[in-house]
């Protein structure tokens, strides 16, 4: 099934999930935090990350040529309408650290700011992920520091936390994602629930402080995570309260359809819509979406694409066979299509003198390039948007062999307004404009 792009597609999809949307515009929201010059609002830069697991079929992914006029590969075909808004990066690598599961590391460490030799106790080169580094900065003004979303459709308990999360506050401290669009909606727009929570925050914080001195070192760290989270929530409540009026104006209704009953494309699009809404209302400027968790060898229905449930991970192992490979490429194509739909929606949203997409850095990628070989070199990476001018999209940028993806992350962090000279194993900033 291919979603038709119409100017109303976002409304349709949200309605499919039960939400109606009164098309709020950034201008309509009197956001004190935004820079205003005369009558024109300069929209802030936002970063979104869209994760696809298990890598991609390499032969279907790579275009033959580079530069601005490159010819799209079959898998990338869905970005044709927005080709000028998207940058394709190739030959960016991560260093795989032996000793832990290759898939868990691919997902959990995709955005990690750790160098390969900085290992957490669990053995992963995992520390604060770049979305959280950005969020620390942008979260000083937005109601929500960041938004972590997952379209993980599996109801079993097959894999560990490392397969199911790409965003981390630090090692061992996961920025847990939400799977239920209703919960996401209520978190963003359910003012009442935030206000009610506020009253006992001091109490629980005092309880935490008094608990602290009886704890050992590791436990103190754990409680520290909790106290940080309480402070974040405290701030959130304060800021959501300030935005109360704006938010009430939106008159949004929560999605009706349960996520368990959604088709794959519905689920991903609804989550994407919620992310877009959060950006448009400037409730947050950083978000991550996992389109699916890493590995998770359980068969899954992808409506409109395959007749029978498919095991994405299993297929990556069978891609030596051309039948399997073509099915796998179709699944890659599907994911790109989902990404492209969201990019098109961003492009349709007017903001200031341009569109939402102009202020975006919306990155699609995987922490593994080839699911059969389990290698982390030449990671599939697409970035849509112009980051308020920091990005000059439309090209295929092929880096020299051995370029760490940390170079791209470093450039993106700087595009968000942070001044950072290095990150993990970065060797310099990647030229993105």
């Amino acid at each position, binding site marked *: 099934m291919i979603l038709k792009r119409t100017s109303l597609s976002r409304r349709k999809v949200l309605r499919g999930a039960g939400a109606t949307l009164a098309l709020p515009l950034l201008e309509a929201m009197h956001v004190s935090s935004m820079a205003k010059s005369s009558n024109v609002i300069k929209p802030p830069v936002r970063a979104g990350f869209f994760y696809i697991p298990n890598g991609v079929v390499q032969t279907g992914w790579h275009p033959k040529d580079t530069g601005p006029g490159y010819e799209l590969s079959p898998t990338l075909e869905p970005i044709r309408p927005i080709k000028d808004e998207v940058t394709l990066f190739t030959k960016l690598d991560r260093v795989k650290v032996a000793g832990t*599961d*290759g898939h*868990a590391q691919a997902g959990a460490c995709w955005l990690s700011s750790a160098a390969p030799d900085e290992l957490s106790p*669990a053995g992963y080169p995992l520390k604060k992920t770049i979305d959280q580094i950005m969020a620390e900065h942008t979260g000083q003004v937005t109601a929500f*520091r960041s938004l*972590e979303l997952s379209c993980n459709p*599996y*109801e*079993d*308990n*097959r894999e*560990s*936390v*490392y397969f199911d999360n790409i965003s981390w*506050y630090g090692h*061992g*401290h996961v*920025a*847990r994602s*939400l799977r*239920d669009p209703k919960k996401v909606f209520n978190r963003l727009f359910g003012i009442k629930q935030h206000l*009610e*929570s506020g009253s*006992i*925050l001091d*109490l*629980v914080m*005092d*309880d935490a402080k*008094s*608990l602290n*001195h*009886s*704890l*050992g*070192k*590791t*436990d103190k760290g*754990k409680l520290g*995570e*909790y106290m940080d*989270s*309480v402070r*974040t*929530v405290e701030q*959130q409540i304060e800021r959501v309260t300030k935005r109360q009026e704006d938010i009430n104006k939106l008159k949004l209704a929560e999605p009706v359809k*349960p996520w368990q*009953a959604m088709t794959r494309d519905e689920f991903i699009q609804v989550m994407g819509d919620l992310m877009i809404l959060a950006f448009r209302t400037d409730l947050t400027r950083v978000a991550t979406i996992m389109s699916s968790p890493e590995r998770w060898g*359980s*068969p*899954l229905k992808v409506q409109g694409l395959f007749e029978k*449930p498919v*095991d994405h991970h299993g297929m990556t*192992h*069978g891609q*030596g*066979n051309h039948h*399997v490979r073509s099915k796998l490429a179709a699944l890659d194509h599907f994911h790109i299509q989902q990404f492209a739909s969201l990019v098109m929606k961003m492009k349709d949203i007017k903001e200031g003198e341009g569109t939402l997409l102009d202020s975006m850095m919306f990155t699609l990628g995987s922490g593994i390039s080839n699911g*059969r070989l*389990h290698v982390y070199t030449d990671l599939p990476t697409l970035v849509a948007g112009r980051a308020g001018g920091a990005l000059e999209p439309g090209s295929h940028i092929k880096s020299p062999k051995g370029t760490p993806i940390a170079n791209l992350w470093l450039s993106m962090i700087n595009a968000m307004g942070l001044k950072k000279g290095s990150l993990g194993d970065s060797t310099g900033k990647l030229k993105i404009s």
Partner: protein
Amino acid sequence: MFFRSYMRLSFVLLIFPFLVAMVLADTVFDFHEIRGRKAKVSNLSLPQVVVKGSTIEHLGTDHDGFYSITFDPVPGATGIELDWANEGGYKHWTIREIEAYAKFGTKLDIVAGKVVPGPARTSDKAFANAFDGDDETFTYTTQSGTTVAPQRTLLELGPGSNTIDRIRINDVAGNGDNGRMQKITVRITTDTDKDLATRKYFDTTNLSVQIFGEALMEGETLPMNGRSRPQSMSGYGDQWSSDTHLLWDGLIGDSMETTIMIDNSSEYNFHIQLTKARDYGQFDLYLNGKAIAKKIDLYSPSVSLADAINLSGLKMEKGQHKVSFKLVGKNIKATPYQKNRYLLGLDFIKIVNMRPPAKESKADLTDISPPQTKDHAATTESKLLVPSQLKVSLDEVLPILASRCYSCHGDNDKVKGKVDLKAVSTREGFLKDIELTQKIIDVLTFKEMPPEDEKQLTPQEHLMLSSLFRGYLDHYIKASGTLKPTVMRRMNRYEYNNSVRDLLQLNGDVYPLPEKVIRSSSYFKPSSGSFPKSIRISNRALGKNQIEQHILTGVSPFAIDLQSEHGFNNRGDELSVSPIMVEAFLKLGRSIVNAPEFDGYSNLINSIFFEPPNSELITRAQLELHLSKFIEKAFRKPIIPDVMERYVNYLDGELKNGQSFEQSMKKVITAIISSPRFFYISEQKNGKLKSQPLSAYELATRLSFFFWSSIPDDELLSVARDRSILDPKVYASQVKRLLESPKSKSIAENFARQWLRLDQLITAVPDFDRFQIYYSRIGCEQWKFGLQTMIEPLLLFESIMVEDRSIMLLVDSNYSYRTDEMQSWYNDPLPFGKRQNANRFSTNSQTFTRRTLPSRREGGVITSAATLTMTSEPLRTSPIRRGAWVATVIFNKPPPPPPDDIPEIEQDDAEIEKKGITLRQRLVAHQENESCVSCHKKIDPLGFALENFDAIGRWRDTYNSGLEIDASGEIFGERKFNDVIGLKDTLIKNPQWFMRSFIEHMLSYALGRELDINDKPSVDKILSKVMADKGKFSTVVTEITKSYPFMNKTNQSE
């Protein structure tokens, strides 16, 4: 009760027989026969013992016991002094034998001893031989009022300097009329001064004492022939040991037979307790075919215990012995049972070794001492599980390594599996890389190395290598000895549900939990000891996930916490609290008490808790009193004034704002259950000591989360509050109570489900066209009929738990719980005839019935359809996934992750078979690469053994194409089997494999952390007890709760 009957045996002292208890060695027991809660702990007369400094005080009124006294190791010890005291008025006491687990494992040699007060010698001759270490029992008679008199000098420790940290006193006793041991003071010396009077002693530190019980074989646990079955005797009084005896009936001339194992040749006393009643017969008792008692008449007009049969001086050799009761006649007054049959009831057999052999100088024949960690009391028992060891040095072993190992692991830069043995050629090197050492022991134990096609080690070489490396490992554990610390963890959503349910006294769950696969619970009555034959249950696997269901309006759970890669979802390092979790806890706390249904759902509402204090002006003191119990329960800690004050202030504030008392109390509840003190499970760990016992409250909390996944209840809190939980007797009775509470169902729901990884069945999608019978159309929807197989292993687990059977039934059970439809689905080539794919079952609830299984290819968790389906691909089986599951779940040896580049195999076995080869042949052909073979050789046979089961777990004699199935294989190099029954046989013959794995899984669950090498001695110890009890479920959980890692915590390093 055992103790009562024992008292009638006159004042013969019962000595702990050195493991005369059933010892398994190579004997295969029928685990199906094991049944009945042995309640071993309650049988013991555990005296109250308190440790004060270097002194152990015995406050109870019991007369005897076996003490294992441990203390911090004293390097260089040359002697030990034990200062004895008994109560003034008593006249009579005995110490039988003392041994120490010192470096050389020799018998302890007492340097000095005192009897205080006393002794007044009535027999100089006896006194002259006191403590001389021979096997006689000495009795000292004392008079009160005699002044302190130093005991005489006795023996010395063995040559060289020793590291003593443990003494075992095998019997300190008196009798009903006479004395008892009251006090032991332990001092150690490193002084070698010959003049004992001038020797200096110092006090031991960290003294603790463990008390052992009697060895007793319950009739109902003995392997028995013919028509025997356990019978509960609780209806006839409480005098039967464990309230149960073994009942047998037969015709005159028939015999009931059993075997017992003796592991030390010696002279024994037998004490046999039988039952008498009006339909009981007359029996001759035979030992190994020789009559040892004639015409024991068990007739009695009423049901009661028969006089104890005491037989002394029976010389018995090490090994198996046959005990039989031959029905030889009947009392003239006896009435037959069933026409012409007569009964026998065996309560217990107790065997006492009257001449315990001198302890052999044992084990430490390696160049390193054997394990002497604090938790290693049961060395004698453990020895049985550990192959014998040789004295061997690294120098002797190096040539073997060089000739047999280096060619792949060290020579010419060849380091297969990244193991370079040549690089680690010193003792220090092996101690430093202890993981490597453990790996070497494993590959030797399981005969994985050298590879099959290489020249094998001779038995002598094998023994030398394993002796050396075991010695290293033991030494490492001893030297390190620090347990891995647990990490403070928040409750997962299952635990949060149970805790809130119990704290707020709710009638049921807080929110629907998919974790509760079986939705019914009323049938689960562990205290009854019997599990229903037929159970009607509803389950979530079939009911449509209850997507939108609420129990309390507006209350929904947070997302499930995922399991650790090889563990459970209760590990602190993976349970963090992000802002979203803070929000979730705040929202839950609020929405629960404010749900419209709350008032009718919580029994707290009508309790005094919601009644305002009865006075006009409510004082802070009243509020404090009002809240204290609730806060103590919620936070599982003694009340801390500043915490109390916070909540009183909060309540006071709400009241002053004009809120009603009830409304204000609800707000306080919200705050309390939103507090980190509620949803974090933490232990105080800021002390300086590395390891220390848990506090009373911490121990209570660990217990309740292990058994109930919930907070302690009022009774458990009260024994924490008065610290009596630290008394082993009280502790044991609480453990028993928790296990017998219906709330212990969480062990099945939370532990068993995760251990078996059963959740994976939910997403299994057998191909619809190929496996139509997995599905069933109901109305216009296709349901997964096969999902109900998920219930089967859970009910098996629960029945083992409730009936206290052997955990070996999880490997091979002769019964199972199935619905009629499932039974047909398993067994009929075309289940349900024409009704193949429509309305085959009710989606609301199903009736599961206990069925005796006709074939051993069925039964147990490995061959359950749930397991077999969830480890298959949609269109074929996956021997590798199945093998990996067996390796992980059954052996707790998860295979390493596969290499990066693995060749693909067709996803449909029809495609493979078209080429005339089987899946097995296809897989084997793919593993030509040596690096693949070394791992797959271990994993695959476990999966190939299950090839007779198709991708949805149904039996097949051949593949669809008619190709033959080859299910043969071998485990650990040498144990060959032909099919799945052979695999089960191998597991049953080596019960220690599965038992160890199960203990490790469960201990890890109980502790909320991963185990490491330092837990090994504790696991060994639990295993030896579980082996001796043939795998009884209650022994597993009870021994876990008594283990060192469970009762202690380790401070986190700064």
